């Protein structure tokens, strides 16, 4: 049985970027099909750490990040749920004077960006965050940052898009996309043929082949963050915690569980799936128990991981294709996509409607990789632990 669908915009990939773009495009009156090879929000968008953080991002990401920052408090109105978004503040710890100096440098660098960072010394930390253990010399606090529940937010955006009239097609891998006359022809699983004037490639770790098929190979690799969650404990962790120079990051959810991330997981035989390594998880657990004395008697109840697209310069690819009119890329968020995704969705909708956006995205052009013969790397996962993490957090 074959099926045909005609839409203004076809979006490949139902993660947070794709589904927020779909919702924004519906708001502008476009007809939209959102396709996912599995379930919307089931990959990196839904299984990430859940940090909603601007602090620590490279300065070129901050205008986009600020745009997203305005979306988060409006989630309830936008998608019907608040996604457990909590503007708790984000506290980035320094374990030594050198790390503290980097935090100071960063604070100066972004002083004009409106993050309102506050540098806190050792005594200040003791007074205000007494639940943090020894071995920390200072921190940088961003009161406007916070955290949210990715499982709810990512699925919630897709559900809201469906309610708004987006044709959400799950378990529908796109098998081929070609430029065809005025638009695109897409072949998808289940004998589905789509015609679309625009295509958004928001396929995350799976975006490479689509870009490459339009003559734009990118050095997209895969990373697999490692997460541990404890049983629920008494509320104690009032802020989202990060660490300068890498290490662990942690937050406490409404129910009381502490989510701790760090290290990297490894892919399974099917590289679309991954699971934390036992020793990696133990390292995260012990580091968390050392940093937060209240956790010394807690139990870890679950680990998880996910598959995330990563770029060598740690900036995403966002913007129009350099080769193909009507094609727009948005992928490769390198473990830092959750907070900015709702802003990216708005930007993508503007790119479709206007061909441009007021939000500066030049730094994310796919053109920066033109001429590089680098090919999409399916990724064995090997050696990825050596890769330095930008600002210490895989998934803000």
């Amino acid at each position: 049985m074959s099926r045909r669908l005609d839409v203004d915009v076809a979006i490949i990939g139902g993660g947070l970027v794709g589904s927020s773009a779909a919702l924004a495009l519906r708001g502008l009156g476009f007809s939209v099909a959102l396709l996912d090879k599995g379930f919307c929000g089931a990959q990196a968008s839904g299984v990430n750490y859940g940090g909603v953080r601007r602090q620590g991002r490279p300065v070129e990401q901050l205008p986009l990040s600020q745009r997203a920052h305005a979306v988060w408090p409006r989630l309830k109105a936008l998608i019907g749920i608040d996604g457990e978004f909590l503007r708790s503040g984000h506290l980035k710890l320094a374990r030594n004077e050198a790390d503290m100096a980097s935090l100071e440098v960063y604070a100066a660098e972004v002083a004009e960006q409106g993050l309102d960072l506050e540098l806190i010394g050792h005594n200040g930390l003791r007074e205000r965050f007494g639940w943090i253990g020894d071995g920390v010399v200072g921190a940088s606090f961003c009161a406007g940052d916070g955290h949210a529940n990715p499982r709810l937010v990512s699925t919630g955006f897709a559900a809201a898009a469906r309610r708004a009239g987006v044709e959400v097609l799950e378990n529908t891998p796109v098998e081929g996309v070609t430029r065809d006359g005025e638009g695109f022809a897409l072949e998808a699983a289940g004998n589905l043929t789509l015609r679309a004037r625009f295509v958004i490639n928001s396929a995350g770790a799976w975006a490479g082949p689509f870009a490459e098929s339009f003559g734009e190979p990118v050095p997209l690799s895969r990373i697999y963050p490692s997460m541990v969650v404890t049983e629920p404990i008494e509320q104690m962790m009032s802020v989202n915690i990060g660490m300068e120079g890498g290490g662990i990051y942690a937050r406490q959810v409404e129910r009381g569980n502490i989510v701790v991330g760090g290290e990297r997981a490894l892919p399974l035989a099917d590289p679309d799936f991954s699971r934390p390594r036992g020793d990696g998880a133990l390292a995260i657990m012990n580091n968390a128990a050392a940093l937060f004395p209240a956790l010394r008697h807690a139990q870890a109840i679950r680990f998880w991981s996910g598959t995330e697209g990563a770029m060598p310069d740690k900036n995403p690819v966002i913007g129009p294709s350099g080769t193909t009119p009507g094609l727009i890329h948005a992928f490769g968020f390198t473990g830092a996509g959750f907070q900015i995704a709702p802003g990216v969705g708005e930007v993508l909708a503007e790119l479709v409607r206007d061909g441009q956006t007021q939000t500066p995205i030049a730094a994310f052009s796919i053109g920066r990789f033109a001429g590089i013969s680098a090919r999409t790397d399916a990724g064995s996962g090997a050696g990825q632990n050596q890769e330095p993490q930008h600002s210490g957090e895989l998934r803000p």
Partner: protein
Amino acid sequence: MKGQPLIVGAGPAGIRAAQALVAAGLRPLVVDEAPACGGQIYRQRLIPDGRSSRDLYGSEASKAEALHRDFAALDGRLDYWPQALLWNLRDGRADIMVEGTSRQVAYDGLVLATGATDRTLPVPGWTLPGVFTLGGAQIALKSQGCAIGSRIVFLGSGPLLYLVAWQYMKAGAKVAAVLDTAPFSAKFNLLRGLPLFPGIVLRGMRMTAELKLGGVALHYGVGDVRIEGASTVAAIAWRQDGLEHRLACDGIGYGLALRSETQAADLAGCRFAFNTRDRAALPERDAAGRTSVPGVYITGDGAGIAGADAAERAGERAALALLQDRGLPHDAARAATLEAELARIGRFRAVLEAAFPFPAHWMKDIADTTTLCRCEEVNAGEVRAAIANFGVHELNRLKAVSRVGMGRCQGRVCGAAAAELLAHETNRGIEAVGRLRSQAPLKPVPLTLALTAQQEAAE
């Protein structure tokens, strides 16, 4: 030289597997959560208390004694870690918590004999103190020598229902009633089992008769069950033949047969398929116990519910398969005999399933206020709302948006109920809603768990 095989579980299946491997000259490592071998069914007392094997295991005493004795006789020819928790498996390595630290074991051949736990469906009041699973009630009696109450009701379906009620009565406890969720007519199916295993069927009939003679009320076709009580169990109410019933009690043993413990097989990468008889996704296996992953074998109730007698045979059969796959001599005639016996037990299982059917239909009418996932404290109404609001129709997606199955037990307790409810709410067959993916740690582990430096178990 080949490495050491790892056997997970020291119940009937694990013991017989170990015995067969040792007999062939291998030195397996056996890890087991319990302090002593025997599994749940042949669980040993914590301390000697004057009770005989006959007191503890009834008609199965000789089987229990043989297993305990045979395993003890392997001492020195295998490595045995009791009170050891397998909490992670990947890339041919097992992470095992034992004596307060975690050891990583590289294994060559993995025999999973992980057994089963009670299957339940939520009913109002099922989380009240005083409500035990049938298996839990049996452990209290066998291992700790205590009863779960002074006036006890046993509720559910399955052979264990009558066995545990009978064991309690024999131990001198006051059993107020046995509430069977299946109609009496379902028991006529047992007659079909007579030619296969007359001894078992007759023993069951005798137990039922003795319960009646002992003054225990037997009720059939029990539905709409509600467990009442403010802070602990005070009474149980139900409907039967259109009439309302109520009985005061302070302890309830409840179970709807058993469910396989398959999490380790999942982490080992085994492919699963839906099994209609068990109404659950089970690791695919051949008649010998080979899974879809070379070198990984699954046996006993963890491979699908078949009981202790089957487990003994399946454990030995899987060990023979491991030997064969390693190119070692193995007894092909013995393997064929075991497979024939297992097939016969499998036919009997179908009889039992018809005599003790699972009341899946209960989930259709579950009240919104009834707790479905007790770890995460999610009630049925919240699950229904999540299904509707997020438009999910797959179990892991339901978990993601509702927290069902996300807590300490990872869905062991509520997973079957969540699947039934999801199937009903989305008008799908139970086989179409998927299965909860397992994650390490398979059971909670301390955050301060340390990894021991040395690689254990290199032969």
